[in-house]
């Protein structure tokens, strides 16, 4: 019944029902869920509406999916239902270089947008490391960040308006310029639980006049994170401030030969962008701070090619981990920037306790840690150790006044950690929003909100 109706509405080539196809959609880049009842690949907003209506009639929940690069199970079905893949809604619909905005479909790959607008001297600022693959729709769902959101802000700062299909299959629009509640802000980062974004107006930025990239090396991560804290405390906000520890730098060098030193305890990758005239002063100030904090070396990337190589190494760091470990678990927590040294200590301590190798590659300037715990999936004890140490890292971040996700989202994996940061009243406020947009909990169910097991009832009290 479900399959026939979907095929009637979208055509056979847009509906997948074979078990081997469905199995593929039960994973993201880390998490395993359950296969959906069907996968659909709509081409238009109208088709998305039709799919939602059919799902509703058949009592199937809906899981929207971009490229599946998420790490928390946000795009993975855990209770069956329909997966809506946006792979065929991947176009730039409108591009206005004068007003520096574009309207794009959710399946558009992040990097393709910047490539599309580059000839006009513009770029799309959010640049998660997955940007070669991940989609604008998925980025909106998780309010994705990336190295450059240190100065440009996360996805929310770059979305101007949305076209959304609601839980009944009806289309509505939001813009940040409308009088009224900022529904755009509510939807960005809502992980597909409040509506299905079918197109988005995004803000584009002018490419900066000057860009410089430097590498500083340190004897250990302590010294490097001190330097990060000092740079921020000095009021300097580079466009990116990324750290890599020795383990990570070695993996990246082995994979990319990007020019990262491997004979030091930690590497800082610093980028500033802006006006030519500011660059020299900026460089001398940064150099002074890192030297004061015990930098072993300091060098500037001399060419665009060298800058690109360093960035390719940074953005490919997660992939490079394959060089040193059969598997890794990537945690995502964010702490106050001044507590970075303490947070890194805690991570190291936890890894040590569980006998795990940890590699750190992360957005140091934001206080956004990404410890990668290395393990071998075939070793059951190691798997257990990774799970436990992952949870301990969450606890350590919370104890330092931090949060359980800086940019990857909550999805299915971290939903029960929500109760560690938020009270029932805090979560109830969020649930009120959910009540309005998705009273039946048909949109990406079992995500974000804690499971019944650990939080008896996260439901807004009736006032």
């Amino acid at each position, binding site marked *: 019944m479900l399959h026939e109706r979907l095929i009637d509405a979208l055509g056979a080539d847009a509906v997948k029902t074979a078990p081997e196809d469905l199995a593929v959609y039960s994973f993201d880049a880390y998490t395993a869920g359950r296969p959906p009842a069907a996968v659909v690949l709509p081409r238009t907003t109208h088709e998305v509406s039709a799919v939602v209506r059919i799902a509703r009639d058949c009592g199937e929940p809906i899981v929207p999916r971009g490229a599946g690069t998420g790490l928390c199970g946000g795009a993975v079905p855990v209770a069956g239902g329909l997966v809506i893949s946006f792979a065929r809604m991947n176009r730039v619909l409108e591009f206005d270089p004068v007003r520096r905005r574009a309207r794009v479909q959710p399946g558009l790959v992040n990097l393709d947008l910047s490539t599309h607008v580059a000839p006009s001297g513009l770029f799309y600022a959010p640049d998660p490391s997955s940007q070669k693959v991940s989609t604008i729709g998925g980025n909106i769902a998780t309010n994705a960040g990336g190295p450059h959101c240190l100065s440009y802000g996360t996805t929310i700062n770059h979305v101007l308006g949305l076209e959304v299909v609601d839980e009944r299959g009806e289309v509505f*629009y939001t813009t940040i310029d409308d009088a*009224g*509640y*900022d529904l755009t802000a509510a939807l960005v980062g809502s992980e597909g639980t409040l509506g299905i974004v079918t197109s988005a107006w995004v803000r584009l930025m002018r490419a900066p*006049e000057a860009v410089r990239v430097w590498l500083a090396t340190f004897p250990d991560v302590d010294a490097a994170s001190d330097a990060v804290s000092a740079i921020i405390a000095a009021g300097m*906000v580079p466009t990116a401030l990324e750290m890599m520890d020795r383990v990570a730098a070695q993996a990246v060098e082995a994979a990319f030969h990007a020019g990262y030193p491997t004979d030091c305890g930690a590497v800082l990758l610093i980028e500033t962008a802006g006006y030519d005239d500011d660059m020299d002063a900026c460089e001398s100030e940064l150099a002074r701070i890192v030297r004061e904090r015990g930098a072993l070396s300091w060098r500037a990337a001399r060419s665009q090619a060298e800058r690109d190589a360093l960035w390719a190494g940074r953005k490919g760091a997660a992939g490079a981990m394959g060089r040193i470990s059969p598997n890794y678990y990537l945690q995502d927590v964010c702490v106050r920037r001044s507590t970075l040294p303490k947070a890194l200590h805690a991570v190291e301590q936890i890894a040590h306790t569980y006998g795990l190798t940890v590699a750190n590659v992360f957005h140091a300037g934001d206080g956004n840690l990404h410890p990668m715990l290395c393990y071998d999936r075939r070793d059951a004890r190691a798997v257990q150790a990774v799970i436990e140490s992952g949870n301990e890292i969450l606890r350590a971040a919370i104890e330092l006044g931090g949060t359980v996700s800086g940019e990857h989202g909550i999805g299915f994996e971290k939903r029960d950690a929500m109760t560690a940061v*938020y009270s029932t009243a805090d979560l109830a406020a969020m649930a009120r929003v959910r009540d309005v947009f998705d009273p039946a909990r048909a949109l990406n169910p079992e995500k974000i*909100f804690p499971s019944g097991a650990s939080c008896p009832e996260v439901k807004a009290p009736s006032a």
Partner: protein
Amino acid sequence: MTIEELAATLGEAQRERTPLTIVGGNTLRGMGRPGAPDARVLSTRALAEVIEDAPADLTIAVQGGMSLRALAQRLGAHGTQIPFDAPFAGEATVGGTLAAGWLGPRRHLYGRPRDFVIGSTIALADGSIARAGGMVVKNVSGYDMSRLYVGSFGTLGVLARVNLKTIAAPERTRLFTMRLPEYTRTRAIAALATMRIVPAAVLWVEGFKQQIDGEDGAEGRLLAFVECSDAMLERATRELRSALGRAGVPETRVVDAGAREAFERVLDAYVANVGERSITYRIGGFPDEAEATALEALALAQRFELRSDTLLDAMNGDVILRVSDLDARALGAKIEMFDDALHDLRPQAIVVAGEHPSRALLQVWGAPPDALARMRALKERFDPHGILNPGRFVGGL
């Protein structure tokens, strides 16, 4: 007052079904529809403390009733700022400015006030207290409730505490003022709006003579504010002068001392009333259409024989239009028809200031947004008995 006491007050009001008018510095009292006549006024001004100042993190947490000036002074001591750009900073509160969704002229460069909010504590109508976000600069743990509260005009709850991120204050601020003969206007505005070095604010001003400095000319004046480093100031000045020269602007005056104060006077003008004789609109749009909007609005005011003062924000595309008449009665006789005509022209126009009693009859929030039904459902879910600023917001929310 504590945050708990504030929440208890709301809970009690809900139990007694007493409508509340939520007030911070009362500087934006000209926004929104008038409050219910039987409403009790609830001021947040007693909640004015810094809760946590973390300059090394570039963050600060303050209570909602703190004035923008007090916050700016605190941040200034660390060499940082948050560009709220709201009028009458001495009285305006952090919570009120955010709740009103205020948008000022430097947002194209630094971002909107909402983008500085990293966490919040809100008192809800049922007397509960809900936190969102935290003190970290990146956070995707559930819905971004803080940003939802920003711009909700106190109709979902009362912002008791906000956590903010800060940015470094510019080393230098320089004001450029010039007469703007009509034949240079289009080119001058376009030249500044597309400069390689982005000015912090560019405003074409007609009228507002009591409020705003500048070279008086029959055809208005142009103000450009540049905020930059020491190293950039000379080049910024050179490029700005040369852009204006190419556009045909005869002469540019440079002001360094007092540039910041001059900027604040411009902000004050956004909501400066002429007694009960004026109504001020904000008409949002794109920079490339702002001049046409301003000219059409001016022509309309002329057709109604209303006096007008205008501000055009060339970087963001906002047009501020203040219409006034000789006395309140004269304004009252025309303002409703003018309001209809203006909204025929620009449906998005909203009222930001005006003490005239007819304000209650105007389309103060412009055309209703597409998602109004959902907004109404949200309001009902957060404030089912309608005690928080009832009827004052978009669509009577």
